């Protein structure tokens, strides 16, 4: 992957190797500030103009025992001079702040990869905690890598001679020393991070100074230390022109929700109970008070859900966000929302389950819960973004559907989308969809106001309290069609069930056609996925196509109802493969809906798919295919 080399300026003769793409992973103790270092590297890289995809990976415990394997926190960044969609399968450069970080991550480093370690952290105690009997820095076991032993603690202290801070406080700056060295190694500018340090620690000048010194010390160490003979440059990517910012999936959901409210001319109500990995949406929305956003930290998820129902009844653009365990608690409330046919959005940022499961790890195993997980015939439209940036679009789309069809809508994100980041082009207002809201102001029939008198899309009117003459009562008991009065009539019940089902099924008419990446007319193999597997699936399929295989992909963002032409598309391919971070939930739905023999490719390790997981499965299948 190295292309050209050129000597850089400077006293020493250092050559700069041009790379197309590089995957860096920072690992250390949860207290080592790895998420911060990773985030800074991401910002700097994005501002420089590379394409970038990130994968933060942190333990569920805020502070697991220091130095332990359980406490290892990591942050992976893929930066590239072309369009990329995954954080990368293999790490090219591993920055390990302690033995536990090294031990837990070494297997992912490519043979011959760059290995920067903080040698000061490899004392007896830390080695023991990580389960090393001998120091791996000294026993030759790392000979297969380009190992650089860096005294990060010493450098940090020396770079801060005369500082008033305690040794402990200085120690906390060592992530910036490491970051500085990485900036030198990959030719990044220090400016973004220096500016950030200033803004963050401006009120504590000695802390700001220590971090800035650490960053520069790391950088100059790279420049002057004889062990480093080359560094690397990943040129800017050719990406669509425009103004960009870096966005995580959770941030994008929050932005999308606020945008939807603005587009609808409404104020947003967000009722939620904190839960990983959804809490950041609550945090983010709580700062948008000048947009009229009201956040309500409820006493539990049931209250979060039902407060949202109340807010929707009262005319707000109402939304709740949670993760799988919270959705389980909301289920009865969602049923009430289906019965009362009010518009609202339920965001599920999925994590590993069942039960408390793996709170900080990603999974897609709540799909069937979203589609089927309530009592009675209880149809809820389900949609899913496929990249962090797409979370913005799909949050708006969720409200489009909710408002047009008067229905709760489930938006399925996951931990990987939520915490992963990518550059996001700021949209122009003109490019955004229009959201139309109408509240009746006069009775809709001669007999007075009929809350369940439907329009052509089977949506009922949204009459809000405070409107004279439209006083009416709704609730969870079965309704008589049109009047909305309580009714136990058997045929009315069946009619209402069918009507609610038909309304949600009818949403398909408003959806775009299925997009096929590859051969639209069909072929040997279709790989179909949904949600955050988008990057890995598309990258794998494109690689296989370049290698001559007749394979295409489809990525679903609409999971209930499916797009109208999906059955037709599936039948154009000889075989269909469905990679999912669950035991085959989408494949089950596709098989049941279309009687197509979908093969499942499950992965439930709390980690996203690697490109090679999927490419390998495709290759194996295609080999079998050739033999047929």
């Amino acid at each position, binding site marked *: 992957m190295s292309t050209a080399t050129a000597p850089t300026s400077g006293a020493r003769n250092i050559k700069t190797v041009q790379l197309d793409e590089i995957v860096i992973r920072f690992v250390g103790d949860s207290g080592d500030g790895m998420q911060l270092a990773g985030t800074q590297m991401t910002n700097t890289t994005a501002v420089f103009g590379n394409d970038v995809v990130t994968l933060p990976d942190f333990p569920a415990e805020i502070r697991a025992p220091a130095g332990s394997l359980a406490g290892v926190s990591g942050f992976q960044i893929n930066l590239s001079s072309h369009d990329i969609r995954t954080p990368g399968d293999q790490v090219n450069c591993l920055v390990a702040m302690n033995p536990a970080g090294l031990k837990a991550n070494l297997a992912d480093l490519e043979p011959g990869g760059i290995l920067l370690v903080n040698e000061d952290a490899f004392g007896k105690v830390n080695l023991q905690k990580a389960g090393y009997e001998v120091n791996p820095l000294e026993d030759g076991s790392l000979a297969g890598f380009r190992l650089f032993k860096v005294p990060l603690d010493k450098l940090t202290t020396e770079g801060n001679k005369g500082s008033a801070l305690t040794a402990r406080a200085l120690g906390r700056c060592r992530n910036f020393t490491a970051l500085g060295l990485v900036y030198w190694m990959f030719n990044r500018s220090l400016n973004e991070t220096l500016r950030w340090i200033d803004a963050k620690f401006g009120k504590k000048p000695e802390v700001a100074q220590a971090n800035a010194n650490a960053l520069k010390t790391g950088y100059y160490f790279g420049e002057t230390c004889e062990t480093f003979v080359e560094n690397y440059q990943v040129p800017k990517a050719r990406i669509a022109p425009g103004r960009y910012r870096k966005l995580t999936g959770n941030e994008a959901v929050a932005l999308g929700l606020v945008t939807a409210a603005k587009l609808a001319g409404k104020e947003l109500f967000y009722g939620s109970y904190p839960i990983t990995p959804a809490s950041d949406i609550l945090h983010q929305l709580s700062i948008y*008070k000048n947009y009229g956003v009201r956040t*309500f930290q409820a006493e539990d998820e049931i209250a979060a859900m039902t407060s949202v129902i109340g807010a929707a009844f009262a005319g707000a653009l109402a939304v709740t966000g949670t993760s799988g365990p919270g959705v389980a608690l909301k289920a009865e409330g969602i049923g009430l929302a289906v019965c009362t046919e009010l518009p609202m959005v339920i965001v599920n940022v999925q994590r590993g389950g069942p039960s408390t499961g793996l709170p900080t790890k990603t999974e897609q195993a709540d799909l069937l819960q979203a589609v089927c997980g309530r009592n009675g015939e209880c149809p809820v439209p389900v949609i899913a973004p496929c990249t962090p940036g797409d979370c913005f679009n799909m949050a708006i789309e969720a409200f489009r559907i909710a408002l047009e069809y008067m229905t709760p809508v489930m938006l399925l994100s996951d931990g990987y989308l939520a915490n992963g980041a990518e550059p996001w082009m700021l949209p122009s207002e003109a490019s955004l969809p229009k959201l139309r809201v109408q509240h009746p102001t006069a009775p809709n029939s001669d007999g007075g106001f009929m809350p369940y008198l439907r329009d052509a899309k089977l949506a009922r009117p949204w009459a809000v309290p405070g409107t004279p003459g439209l006083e009416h009562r709704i609730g969870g008991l079965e309704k008589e069609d049109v009047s909305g009065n309580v009714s136990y009539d058997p045929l009315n019940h069946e009619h209402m069930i069918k009507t609610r089902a038909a309304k949600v099924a009818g949403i398909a008419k408003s959806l775009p056609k299925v997009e096929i990446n590859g051969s639209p007319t069909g072929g040997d193999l279709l790989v179909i996925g949904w949600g955050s597997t988008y990057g890995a699936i598309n990258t794998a399929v494109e690689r296989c196509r370049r290698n001559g295989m007749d394979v295409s992909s489809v990525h679903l963002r609409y999971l209930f109802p499916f797009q109208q032409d999906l059955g037709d598309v599936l039948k154009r391919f000889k075989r269909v493969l469905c990679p999912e971070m669950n035991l085959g939930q989408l494949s089950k739905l596709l098989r049941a809906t279309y009687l197509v023999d979908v093969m499942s490719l499950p992965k439930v390790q709390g980690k996203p798919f690697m490109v090679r997981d999927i490419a390998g499965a495709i290759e194996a299948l295609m080999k079998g295919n050739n033999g047929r």
Partner: protein
Amino acid sequence: MSNNVTMPQLTAKDFASDQDIRWCPGCGDYSILAQVKKVLPTLGIPREKFVFVSGIGCSSRFPYYVNTFGFHSIHGRAPAVASGVKIVRPDLSVWVITGDGDALSIGGNHLLHAIRRNLDIKIILFNNRIYGLTKGQYSPTSEFGKKTKSTPMGSVDFPLHPLSVAIGAEATFVARSLDVNTKHLEEVLVRAAGHKGTAFVEVYQNCNIFNDLAFEYVAGKDTRDDHMLALEHGKPLIFGKNRDRGIRLSGTTPEIVQLGGDVKEDDLLFHDEKANEPTLAYLLSRMHHPDFPEPMGVFRAVQRPTYEALVNQQIGAARAQQGEGTLEALFDDGETWVVN
């Protein structure tokens, strides 16, 4: 002479819906409905501004029978639904109708939190000490040892006292009344409606089917005067058919004393609904039949900012400081860069 055009004066009839009422004949709920319909038109609030939210239970059918906006929600969750309504529409008059099971069993959590937040909502708890709708199981307010369908040998659950719970949850308004004491109930409802904050009202309600005469000691003509104590702010605690007995404090515990002789009115405990500390209100909430006459009326009525007012103040302050948010500002925030 001027020709004044006045708003048509609404009456109880205007608040009756067209739905058939499905409670059992003789149920105490009828009387509570009648008093509420009587009080609503006197409050000077347009009909369309009322929202009645309920949970599940016999009592929770209530919203169907008043011609206002209404929401019959799910079991126990009415306070949370009402919170959502009130936070986004502080201009509405929001009433929660709930039962003893609905409010204190499945919905206990929401009740506590609505009360502590002090949303400006009126919570009317119909306490019949039984699960009516599910046909007669014991409830969290049923007496210890009570025999019901689910407790053939008597309940071994220790009961909750709704007003003690509400006071423990930092309630700013706490009151009690009785279904058949229509005048008293009307007065208490008017007081609750006038309170700015969460008004919690327990109404003793007879379920003549599954727990008949549960409150006969305070409802029956012959017994009531000796077993209830009408609370009046600033007045001594006196009760009895002949108003000859009172409540006095002995240390920190109340005791019943006979007036006359050594004991003067001034020796009695005086009611103070405005007391900052809820100690007195709590003490009153612990006076139970048959050891004590049960207090009726307003136990506590103090002022504290309402939740929705504080929420909307913050929104107002943010808008004043930062200006109304625009999409442009929303997107172009933090570190951005341009690709040409």
